C-alpha cells in the first residue's frame, strides 16, 4: 500500500481525457470516482493529467506470477509491480505454480499474498485438474467458495486434452458461474520436443514444431462441447487465423465462447526464430504474418474479446539452453499497453474506447470481477490508468521491475506510456514509477 496516499484521501486528476475524448477533472474519494467535470481541488492531492488519456484500470486475464515455487523468476509482489507499471489494477494468476493452485488453501494463499503486496488485485486462477495432470477434477467448487472466490479455471501450460474431462469440467462450473480457460493444444499433433510454429521457417531451421491445426482442432472441439453442455468456454491466447474462424462461427451460432490474444501474437512473427534466440520461444508459438493479421482483425471486430499478456517470467539460466531445451514464455505486463496502442490504435484498428474494452471491460467481465473494468463514471471504483499517448518508449529489459529479463520487446520502440495507475483511488504508479 502506498505510503503517500491512503484510501480516505481525496485526489483530483486534472485535465485527463477520458477514453481519449474531451479533457475533464475527476475527484476520487473513498476508493470511488466521486465527481467528474469541474471539481474543487480543496484538500485534495492533484495529479496533473494534461494531455493524458484516462482508461479504466487494465485487467489481465493471463499472468504467471511464479509464486509459490519459482520465486527466483518472479514473486507475487514483483509481478504485481510489473502489472501496476503496465497500467493494470487486476491480474489473474495462472495455476501452474508449485504447488499447483488446485485447492482452496492454495488459492487463498495466492490471493492473500496479492492483498499483502497491494499493488493490483491478484485473483488466482484455479487448476481444472488436480496437479494439472488432466485426469481428475481439481476442487473447483471449494476454490470457488474460498476467500479467493475463484471463477476462472485453467490448466494453462497444458491442454485439458481428454474430451470427457473437459466436458465434465464445463458442466461442473455452471453451478457457480465459472469458466474454463483452455490452453488449446492437441498433444498428439504437438510432439514432446515441439518448440515453435511448424512451417517454412521451422522446416529450414530444423526445429521440431507444431502446426496451427494443433490449436484449431481443440478450439473446434471445445466450442462444440460448450454448445453441448450449455456452458462457457474461454480460449486462452488464440494464435491462428483458423482458430479465429472457428470462434467467429461459434459466436454466430450463439455458443458462449470468449477469447483472448497476447500482445506478442499481435506483432511478433515466426521469422524472429532464425537467430535461435530462446527469448522468442513461447507457447503458443509465434506464427506467420497471415495469422498476426487475422488476430488483429479479430480483435478489432470483437471476435476476440480481450488482450491478455501471458506474462511468463523465467530465470536467465532457464533460457540459456539450446532452443529446444529452453523454457517457453516471455514477459508482457509492462509493455502490453504500448504494444496494443502501437499495433491497434496506431493502425486505426481500435480507438481508446476500444482499447479500454479489450484491456479492461471485457477481461473483467470474462473473469467476473464486478469492481474492475467499469466505465469511468461517478460512483464507479476509482481504478484507472493515465496514459501519455504520444510517448515514444524504447524498451530496456534492465529497466523492468520484473525479476526476469526474458523480454522480447527489448530495444523496440513503442508508442504510449503508462504515466499513472490508481487502484481504488490510491496511486500505485506515478510519473511511470512505482509509488
Amino acid at each position, binding site marked *: 500500500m502506498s505510503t503517500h496516499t491512503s484510501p480516505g484521501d481525496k485526489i483530483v486528476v486534472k485535465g485527463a481525457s477520458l477514453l481519449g475524448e474531451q479533457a475533464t477533472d475527476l475527484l476520487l474519494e473513498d476508493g470511488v470516482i466521486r465527481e467528474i467535470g469541474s471539481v474543487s481541488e480543496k484538500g485534495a492531492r492533484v495529479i496533473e493529467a494534461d494531455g493524458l488519456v484516462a482508461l479504466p484500470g487494465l485487467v489481465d486475464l493471463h499472468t504467471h506470477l511464479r509464486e509459490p515455487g519459482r520465486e527466483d523468476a518472479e514473486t507475487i509482489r514483483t509481478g504485481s509491480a510489473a502489472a501496476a507499471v503496465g497500467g493494470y489494477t487486476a491480474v489473474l494468476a495462472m495455476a501452474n505454480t508449485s504447488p499447483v493452485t488446485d485447492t482452496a488453501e492454495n488459492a487463498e494463499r495466492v490471493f492473500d499474498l496479492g492483498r499483502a503486496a497491494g499493488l493490483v488485485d491478484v485473483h488466482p486462477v484455479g487448476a481444472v485438474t488436480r496437479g494439472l495432470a488432466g485426469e481428475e477434477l481439481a476442487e473447483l467448487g471449494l476454490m470457488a467458495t474460498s476467500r479467493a472466490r475463484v471463477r476462472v479455471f485453467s490448466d494453462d501450460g497444458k491442454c485439458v486434452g481428454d474430451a470427457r474431462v473437459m466436458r465434465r469440467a464445463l458442466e461442473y462450473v455452471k453451478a457457480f458461474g465459472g469458466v474454463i480457460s483452455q490452453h488449446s493444444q492437441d498433444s498428439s499433433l504437438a510432439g514432446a520436443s515441439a518448440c515453435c510454429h511448424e512451417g517454412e521457417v521451422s522446416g529450414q531451421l*530444423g526445429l521440431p*514444431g507444431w502446426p496451427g491445426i494443433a490449436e484449431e482442432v481443440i478450439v473446434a472441439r471445445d466450442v462444440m462441447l460448450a454448445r453441448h453442455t450449455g456452458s462457457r468456454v474461454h480460449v486462452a491466447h488464440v494464435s491462428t487465423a483458423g482458430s479465429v474462424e472457428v470462434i467467429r462461427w461459434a459466436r454466430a451460432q450463439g455458443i458462449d465462447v470468449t477469447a483472448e490474444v497476447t500482445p506478442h501474437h499481435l506483432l511478433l512473427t515466426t521469422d524472429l526464430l532464425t537467430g535461435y534466440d530462446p527469448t522468442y520461444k513461447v507457447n503458443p508459438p509465434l506464427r506467420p504474418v497471415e495469422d498476426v493479421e487475422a488476430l488483429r482483425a479479430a480483435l478489432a471486430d470483437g471476435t476476440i474479446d480481450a488482450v491478455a499478456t501471458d506474462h511468463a517470467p523465467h530465470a536467465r539460466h532457464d533460457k*540459456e539452453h*539450446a*532452443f529446444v*531445451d529452453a523454457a517457453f514464455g516471455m514477459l508482457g505486463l509492462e509493455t502490453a499497453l504500448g504494444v496494443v496502442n502501437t499495433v491497434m490504435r496506431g493502425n486505426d484498428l481500435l480507438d481508446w474506447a476500444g482499447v479500454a474494452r479489450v484491456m479492461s471491460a471485457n477481461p473483467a467481465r470474462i473473469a467476473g470481477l464486478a469492481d474492475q473494468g467499469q466505465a469511468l463514471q461517478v460512483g464507479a471504483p476509482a481504478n484507472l490508468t493515465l496514459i501519455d499517448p504520444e510517448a515514444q518508449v524504447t524498451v530496456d529489459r534492465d529497466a523492468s521491475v520484473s525479476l526476469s529479463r526474458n523480454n522480447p520487446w527489448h530495444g523496440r520502440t513503442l508508442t504510449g506510456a503508462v504515466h499513472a495507475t490508481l487502484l481504488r483511488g490510491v496511486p500505485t504508479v506515478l510519473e511511470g514509477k512505482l509509488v
Partner: protein
Amino acid sequence: MKHLLSINDLDVDAMRMIFDTAAEMHDVQHREVKKLPALRGRTVINLFFEDSTRTRSSFEIAGKWLSADTINITGKGSSTSKGESLRDTVLTVCAMGVDALVMRHHASGSAQQVSEWVDAVVINAGDGTHEHPTQALLDAYALELKLGSLEGRRIAIVGDLTHSRVFRSNVLALTKLGADVTVVAPPTLMPSGIDAWAKASGFSTSYDLDEVLPGADAVMMLRVQRERMNGAFFPTAREYTVRYGLTRDRLATLKPDTPILHPGPMNRGLEIAADAADAAQSLVLDQVSAGVAVRMSVLYHLLAGEETA
C-alpha cells in the same frame, strides 16, 4: 568467416578456397609422414553431446595432422539433464583456454547460440536436424573429384529430409555450386514448408524416386531411422525400401559411373542395398577420406586464416 555454423556462412569463393586447400591436404594424407605444423600450439576441443564415431574421429585426425592439441569431450544427453545450462557448459570448457570448439549437439541452432557466448572459433559438427556443414563440404568436394564442376549436374537427395541435417547443408551447398538438386521423400518426411523453400532456393521436390533416378548424375541416399515408423512417418521398413530404397533393381537403372553417396552410418537393406553400397560407383569410402581433408582445410582456414590471407 569467424565460425562455420552453416553453409550460409560461405559464398562460392570461400567454398572454392576450402576445396583448394583440401586438395593439398588430401595429398598429405597419402604421405608416410602426415603431420603438418600449421596449428602447433593451438587447442581444438571436440565437444560432442551426441554419439558420433566417424565425425568425431575425422575431426580428431584432422586436428592431429595439423599438429593441434585435440581433445575430445563427450557427454551423452543434454546439459539440461545434468541441471547445467548449455551456456555454463561451454563457458566452462572454453575457460580452459580453447582456440576452436568443434561441436555436435542434439539441438538445432545450438552451435549458433554457443558462438554468441564464447570467444573461441565454433565449428558446427552437426546441430540437431539443422545443419552439418563439413559433411556437405566433403560431399561436394568428393563429387567434384568424380564429376568435375557441379554446374548443371542433376543430383538427387533421397530419404528422411525432415530429420536430416545432412540434407539441409547439402541442399544449400550444392545449389550454391550450381547443381540442379531434386530432393525425394514421402510427403511425411518432407520438411514443413518445403515447397516455398524449394521455389525460393531453386531446387525441386519429388515423391517418386523412379521418376528422378534415370536423369540423375549423382544420388545421395540419407539414413532412415527404423524407429520413424513409430511416429507414423511410414508404415514399415519393407514398404520404405520398396518405395524409396536404392535397391538392386534401381541400381541397375543408374549409369555405371553415376556416383552414389551416403553420409553413413548405412542401414544396409533399408535405404541402400548392399550391392549399391559396395558398387564401384559408390563414393561412401571416398567421402570418409575426403572428410579428413576438408576438415583439415576448415580448421586451417578458421584457425590460421589470417596468415594465409
